[in-house]
């Protein structure tokens, strides 16, 4: 069956199977920044923005995206660039398998609550696991990124 959706601001008509998950549809259509880390929505690596809210695309049926907006990191390149710079400053990037999903989630947080406290940042990102960094450097980098936006806006 066909679904209509907007991916990164561009309208698309995609052919999907009824039982297919959005993650697999996106990868099949070359949105390769969206990746799989688990079998049951517990790692956060597959995060996309669904009408600007972060959701795990591995457990979202593709048909549910019909007439909605999906954002992958390909759609927020400039913000990802900024966040990457902050990560670089704190040595917060390691394998990076979690990073594109981190960029999307942090970007969404910035839209919702740019003055998030330490605890709010942690709560918001708790579903985005990272096995490499131990989180502390990421946390500092994310705070820096959120702060930057504050200054410019």
């Amino acid at each position, binding site marked *: 069956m066909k679904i209509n959706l907007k991916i990164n601001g561009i309208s698309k008509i995609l052919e999907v199977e009824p039982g297919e998950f959005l993650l697999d549809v996106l990868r099949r259509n070359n949105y390769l920044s969206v990746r799989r880390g*688990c079998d*049951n929505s*517990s790692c956060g690596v597959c995060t996309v923005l669904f009408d600007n809210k972060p959701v795990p695309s591995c457990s979202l049926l593709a048909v549910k995206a019909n007439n909605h907006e999906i954002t992958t990191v390909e759609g927020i390149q400039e913000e990802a660039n900024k966040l990457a710079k902050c990560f670089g400053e704190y040595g917060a*990037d*390691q394998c990076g398998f979690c990073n594109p999903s981190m*960029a999307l989630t942090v970007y969404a947080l910035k839209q919702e609550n740019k003055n998030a406290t330490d605890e709010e940042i942690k709560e918001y*990102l708790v579903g985005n696991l990272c*096995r490499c960094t131990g989180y*502390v450097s990421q946390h500092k980098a994310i705070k820096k990124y959120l702060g930057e936006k504050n200054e410019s806006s």
Partner: protein
Amino acid sequence: MKVVNKKVGSVDGVGIMKGRKAFTDDYADKDSLIIKVKRSPHAFARIKNIDDSKAKALDGIEMVLTYKDFKRISFTRAGQGYPEPSPHDKFVLDKYVRYIGDEVCAVVGSTEEICLKALSLIEVDYEVLEPVLDFEKAIDNKTIIHDEPEAKEMFDIGFKPKKNIAASYHMHIGDVEKTLSECEYTIKETFYTQAQSHVMLEPHAVNTHIDYQERLVIYSSTQTPFHIRRIIAQALEIPMSKIRVIKPRVGGGFGGKQAIHGEMLAAYVTYKTGKPAKLVYTRKEVFESSYSRHPMKFEMALGADKFGKLKVIDCKVLSDTGAYGEHALTVFMVAGSKVLPLYNKVDSVRFSGDVVYTNHTPAGAFRGYGAIQGNFALESAVDILCHKMDMDPIKFRNLNMMKEGETSPIFAIMGEGTEGTPMNMDTCKLQECVEDGKALIDWDNKYPYKDMGDKIKTVGMAIAMQGSGIPLIDMGSATIKLNDDGFYNLMVGATEIGQGSDTVLSQIAAEELNTTIDKVIIYSSDTDLTPFDVGAYASSTTFVSGNAVYKAAKALKTEMLNEAARIFKVDIKQVEFDGEIFKVKNSDKKMTLRDFSNEITYSEEQKQLQVTSSYVGPKSPPPFMAGFIEIDIDKETAEIDIIDYVSVVDCGTTINPMLAKGQVDGAIVQGLGMAMFEDVKLAKNGKLISSDMLNYKIPTRLDINKLTTKFVDSYEKSGPFGAKSVGEIGIDTPPAALANAIENALGVRMTSLPITPEKILQKLKENEK
């Protein structure tokens, strides 16, 4: 120094964050055949018959592979240098299945859906056998797990398959019993460490195709591309010259990707069919069917004289390697060789025991590699002894631990699977590590504990060491070439797996060539294009591969000076090079690097300047550290809040202080996970209960408050720009430091991992009785 020991962002961080094609599965052909593996529901069984007729009849199924398709060539998946110190006890597919999750057969088809359907249509007739599920009952069990005649050791590792022993080892110095009998204070305790899963976020992935030269190309998320090439060539009898292994970006390894996993099946399918194929493990397969950390049992005895001098250490160890013997001997030995030298002034020391087969998910390499297990046992035992002697644990360590300039006879006796190499500790800043850590955690105000009403605040500590590569075995190499326009390519076999080696190695080259890191373009791990390297394991990359890069850069610089001297028509001694400009001493003759490179590329006596250098370490200088934990324990529930973890590390020069900190931070948190909750749980029949990330909890953002990581000044002469390695050491101390903190606060000794509130409450209750 201009580039080394400086805050330099990683060379690939921006591209990865922006989601560029990077990881193995991003490179899979869109029309790849999908491979799915049917996995054993029995802990031990013989396959009597596989009826795959219905599966084969399905539209879209290309083939079903069973043991009948493969010649019986035994190998080890371990991913080590050749000949491996691990038994060859594995076949691509076998008629025996030895753990729940072991490979039964594989289906190959056009879509995942078809493959799953085919799997469900395959009927397997098993003769179910009695499994060995208690590693303490494995030796001489009536069940023999590896009875096949092809299973063999490559050299003497104490392999006794008829007794379910994959490897065994014994060493002693002095007379342990005698020394123990002479000691004023002695203690005895038994410790258990659990299996731990790596949970790297990228599951194991491989894809394969045949290129236009009719060669087999394998993209693999591996830590050891060169070993993968060799093992596949040997096991599938494909000429090695026909195989190219490319390692793209790897999404974390921690040792879990040192071994070969789906590569064998994918390579076979493509080699047979000529079609592209791929195999990506599900998370369940990663948990159940790759491997985890070796669980171990330690029976420890220590003795000290009346002044608190440690006189004797005795460890009897039993290790569970699961169904296959990957890294059986070497992990076992590291539990001694990279732990015992911490206390080098003892009169007697003994380390002995066996590594046994069971019908569990296999065990294999995992960051720490035995040292974390051994560290938990020894550093816990040391604190028990301190309590018995009523001696401050820091004072005890200052009195007894390894100091700079000293050595331990253990280095010469114990290597990894072989004899060791003697070495002196040219750098060992353990004293500074302990002192600084003590100040940073505010030990004097918090030790042994502080009553805070509902909670008790306490601190605990442990010291650790690791190695820097395997001396005389691990080889790394690097090629550097100068391009026109004056920039360099650096080609290394070293394997970037997220630890930052591409960045660190580029920094080393840039420093020696006096240039900036953007002028060094690195490419790592392609068996056709980059020179050999054993891969990313044993904390070897910065030290071993880094030394190779340093040597290559130095040699290239000499070649460049030679060429410049020729162009200037002067003696090489007259030429100076500052990274950008060649100058003749006491003259105004000069030339930019750019002009120089263009000239030798296009104008006169044109040539490609390129150098390859290799490095094998004559020794493996250990990094050292002291770890201090501060926790608050709830008096009623025994819930633990980690307030801070202080790590003070001596890893020589930090080539990249930020990335080095990242290595320590990340390892500390993995170590805390092992200390506090990570646990591979099994049902009675041997089935893994913790086979997903809901049942196997790794630390989240909410578990970690503060990490205080510091490096002491240290310069290791044998390392590149003074560096030692830093990839593993961070993981070693948390289990012992936590257990020690708990005893400081509550007076109970936790002897098995993970240390959960339930276990603490239970111990407290037992103590009341």
